[in-house]
């Protein structure tokens, strides 16, 4: 009389044919999307970061709008780059940290073993996590970049005249700002996969995303820009400024820099993940 229900079941065939690579990719992507979207803390953190970013963007724009228009001011207000001051400060950091947690939280709880048991092809897992996190960061980044741009231009329009998207470089700057967020998120994913521990991975990601540029700023004159232009913040600035200082890379070269950092992080992760015991 033990569990007749189980015994009554008829044995059937095996799991069926192996899925095509496309179906397989969709499965793993859907799984990672469920993981990312089902954490309440992620939604709250992102919502708060977005709200703070928008409020501070308005504050920054208002303070520029209130500044004296003519006279001693050497450089005119960079109406494009101003839009993304708060964006760079208050959105990039939380998104980078959440991206680091994509891997390190699984290592901390041990869930990573379940993940790699369900999908033994570890590079597929890395690719899916990177794709889902990067896509989410790109969408959030673009939406908030456009929001920050329009908000700033609406506030500036009173005294300086707000820019329209048709202004030369405006579309490029806004699109690039959103892309920067995705690039930082991917650096975070790669750092988390390589270092496994949350604290260390956050330190590494923040070093790449912020601190290297700060270090370059204190170098003597020609070298600060010569080295600095290879860092993420300088490349991002080259994309969004209407008045690039001499010595920075062109926007297209800067885009390469913005792609190279996350690519390097993910490459390191791909190499390390397959060679290490979980």
């Amino acid at each position, binding site marked *: 009389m033990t569990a007749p229900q*189980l015994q009554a079941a008829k044995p059937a065939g095996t799991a069926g044919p192996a899925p095509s690579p496309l179906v397989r990719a969709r499965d793993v992507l859907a799984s990672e999307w469920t993981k990312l979207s089902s954490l309440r803390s992620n939604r709250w953190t992102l919502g708060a970061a977005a709200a703070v970013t928008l409020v501070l963007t308005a504050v920054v724009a208002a303070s520029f709008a209130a500044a004296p228009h003519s006279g001693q001011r050497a450089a005119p207000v960079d109406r494009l780059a101003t839009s993304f001051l708060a964006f760079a400060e208050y959105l990039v950091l939380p998104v980078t940290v959440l991206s680091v947690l994509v891997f390190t939280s699984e290592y901390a709880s041990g869930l990573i073993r379940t993940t790699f*048991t369900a999908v033994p092809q570890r590079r597929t897992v890395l690719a899916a996590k990177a794709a889902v996190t990067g896509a989410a960061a790109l969408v959030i980044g673009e939406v908030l970049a456009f929001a920050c741009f329009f908000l700033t231009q609406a506030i500036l329009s009173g005294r300086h005249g707000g820019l329209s998207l048709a202004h030369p470089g405006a579309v490029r700057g806004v699109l690039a700002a959103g892309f920067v967020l995705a690039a930082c998120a991917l650096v975070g994913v790669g750092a988390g996969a390589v270092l496994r521990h949350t604290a260390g991975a956050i330190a590494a990601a923040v070093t790449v995303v912020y601190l290297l540029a700060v270090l370059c700023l204190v170098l003597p004159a020609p070298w600060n820009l010569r080295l600095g232009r290879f860092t993420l913040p300088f490349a991002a600035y080259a994309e969004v400024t209407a008045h690039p200082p001499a010595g920075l890379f062109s926007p297209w070269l800067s885009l390469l820099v913005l792609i190279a950092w996350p690519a390097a992080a993910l490459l390191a992760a791909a190499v390390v993940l397959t060679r290490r015991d979980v």
Partner: protein
Amino acid sequence: MRPGSGAAIAVVAVALAFVVYCLVDLSRARVRNLPKWAWAPIICLTIPWGGILYLILGKDRTTPAVPDPAPPPDVTAGALGVHSSPAAPHIPRRIPAGPVQIDVDGLTKRFGPVTAVDDLSFAVRPGRVTGFLGPNGAGKSTTLRVILGLDAPTSGTALVGGRRYQEFIRPLHEVGSLLDATAVPAGRAAWSHLRAIAQSNGIGQRRVREVLELTGLETVASRRIGEFSLGMKQRLGIAAALLANPPVLLLDEPANGLDPEGIRWFRQLLQAMAAEGRTILVSSHLMSEMAQTADHLIIIGRGRLLADVATEQFVSGTSHDVLVQSPSAGELASLLTASGAVVAPENGGGLAVTGMNAAAVGDLAVSHGIAVHQLVTRHGSLEEAYLALTGASTDYRAGSPLPEVQTARAAR
């Protein structure tokens, strides 16, 4: 409509509103000034939204399941011990045509100078529950991790059905496993956790609901796993292992934290699944539980194989003796010794006799007119047999607790 799709639609609506606003802004201004290439990225930007929408709202592909036979009668729920579920669901079983065997051959795993598993070879055969025993640090978990492709062996192989685990494309359909029930995301709801695992192997929502009902967790499916007790986490881990209805189960300490009813339910589940021809390997420290559940035992110590025997044979092969109590114990003892038996006095009074069975002891007593108050044949337990076998190979042995207690008191 699926939960969460409302929020997704709202997000996409806001995003689309932005795109429209951008286009309006552009059309108001001098559109001709806009570089032509700028249109391409604007269009490209909409693609990720489409992809994410597809992921969220995409049609669920439930695994091709066996057509349901008649629903099971209600009594089965009670027999399964699935409490708080009035009618246990019917679980369609998919067992491969051929039996699946796990073969561990010459497996060695070193972590730096430490050899966790040392030239270990055994086979786990289908159709029975195999217990995997060993002291702490004996290498059980390492062996399971190597079988599951998580750790790379230093040498040797561990094959499931003749294949390395890493070769499986949807491995949950081949092997269900539970390594550590506490390795779960505290912030995620049980439902989302199982759903994410299921999606990675193309398993549909219906099946997630089924395993939640099978393990009695359907009422707490939407609660955060952080609020779960250890027993509930064990049930969740078992649910995850059963998701794809696999022909092989690898379970590490699955009975930890289960209540007695849960243990009974779990034992019956394992035995029923073994009877269907599945291959089941369970590690455990609960000896009495293992004695009741496992048909076969694999015992290791310090990474080496100590025993690979049927449970019955292992237990009965251990020493057994006869306990006899008599008012004239001294006389009986000398008679027994004269007949070739070995006699030792017992603590609680009476004699422990080895080398002679109970019937012979009774006959001897009667023939000499000696009264016998108790006559019992005592078998060694699995626990004793296990301790006798592994005594020499224990890595971490507790010291005598008494001196520590005394020093602790002295310190106070």
